[in-house]
């Protein structure tokens, strides 16, 4: 039913190549918990970035807090450096509705005003509900709305696709 899934590590090396071609000076890379952090860690390594890697948890900025409440395992965001006037590379595993990225941008702006934010996404799929698009994409996958894709990790990355109960 689904075509064979790509290997995340292959996609990441492709993303690294693409990022390297137009890498801003001293960028700060930030992964979104949890899958985005795994991807960011690998990208950070292949790009030999010397600036420390950041991570953010978007739970405080979710637009569905009043419906689903606070995730019991909210992690603290770690922004390692002053982001004022710096170029950021925001990394996540899956882009679908765009709401996570909206929340992540709000979170980032509570830490300061970056010069620019690039969005690097491992897998893009249809279903956008907000006007958000990635700058760098590992792969575009055609999935039914009922299918749910998840990145498993952290040691070995692989995708898992399941039917979402409706």
């Amino acid at each position: 039913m689904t075509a064979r899934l790509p290997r995340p590590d292959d996609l990441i090396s492709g993303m690294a190549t693409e990022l390297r071609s137009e890498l801003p000076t001293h960028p700060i890379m930030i992964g979104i918990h949890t899958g985005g952090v795994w991807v960011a860690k690998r990208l950070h390594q292949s790009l030999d970035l010397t600036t420390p890697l950041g991570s953010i948890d978007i739970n405080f900025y979710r637009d569905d807090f009043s419906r689903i409440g606070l995730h019991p395992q909210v992690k603290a965001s770690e922004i390692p450096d002053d982001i004022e006037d710096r170029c950021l590379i925001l990394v996540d595993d899956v882009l679908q509705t765009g709401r996570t990225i909206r929340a992540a941008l709000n979170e980032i702006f509570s830490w300061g005003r970056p010069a620019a934010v690039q969005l690097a996404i491992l897998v893009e799929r249809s279903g956008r509900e907000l006007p958000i698009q990635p700058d760098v994409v590992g792969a575009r996958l055609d999935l039914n709305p009922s299918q749910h894709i998840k990145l498993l990790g952290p040691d070995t990355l692989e995708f898992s696709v399941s039917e979402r109960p409706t």
Partner: protein
Amino acid sequence: MTSSVQFDTNGNLRHFLTIEGLSREALVEILDAAESFISIGERQIRKVPILRGRTLVNLFFEDSTRTRTTFEIAAKRLSADVINLNPARLSTNKGERILDTIRTLEAMHTDIFVIRDNASGTSHLVAKHVPSHVHIVNAGDGRHAHPTQAMLDMFTIRQHKDDFTKLRVAIVGDILHSRVARSQIHALKILGVPDIRVIGPRTLLPTEIEKMGVTPLCELDEGLQDVDVIMMLRLQLERMEGQLIPSAQEYFRQYGLTAERVQRAAPDAVVMHPGPINRGLEIASEVADGKRSLILEQVTNGIAVRMSIMAKLMAGQRGPEEGKE
């Protein structure tokens, strides 16, 4: 006073009235979330939108500086609108008049009431009468409970000690009048602390306190032996009727925490106090300001812990504009 009132029909925490009856998981969840709220204090913009558009009323029938202020800061960091009220104390038909006050404020679309009162059970009474979208937080009711204080104390202990199940804890002073002590004992028991000692003059130890699973002791020097945590209490002179302590000097001589007495505790023991402290009465200045003292950390932690508790109560609540999918 256990409180099934504090849960909704799905077993979710709806009000925060007492520690009694809460599960270990619920306490740990609040402490874990508080950990992440700490980081908000370190940002350029110290605010998150979790309670944006919500209104919180601090209703303090009894004076307080730090509790009211930290609730206010906590709510503001969650983006709530905050109103502080300190109505004059009412003597007759008090319960009924408090409910009238609450109904009036409720009509102004208040979402959370933080209530402090000198009568035990006030927030419990209010919780029974508010509609389901209104949440009550007990900020201290008489001698009964002060659950948010106990949670920030647990949070502070956890920052310094690895494992609750190996701790020896001494709670020292005016146990009789202390809502803080009661809430602390419940929280420590739920988190699995095996050795809890309550220490004070016989006149200030409630009868049958050992039924709470603690060891009552009248000798401070004996009680402090090898403890990991010393939790001092404020001598509540305003609640004392009659002669419960001999004199200030005599009380300090027998029960005041001095640097010398701290030596009896474990080498890495920490000293806590909910404040405000009576220097030279229950605690010596050199201890209160000393390097083992966590008193100011407790105050700071109070903000994150109260944010965590309010976020938990408001979780899963639909506002009026969110009724449709």
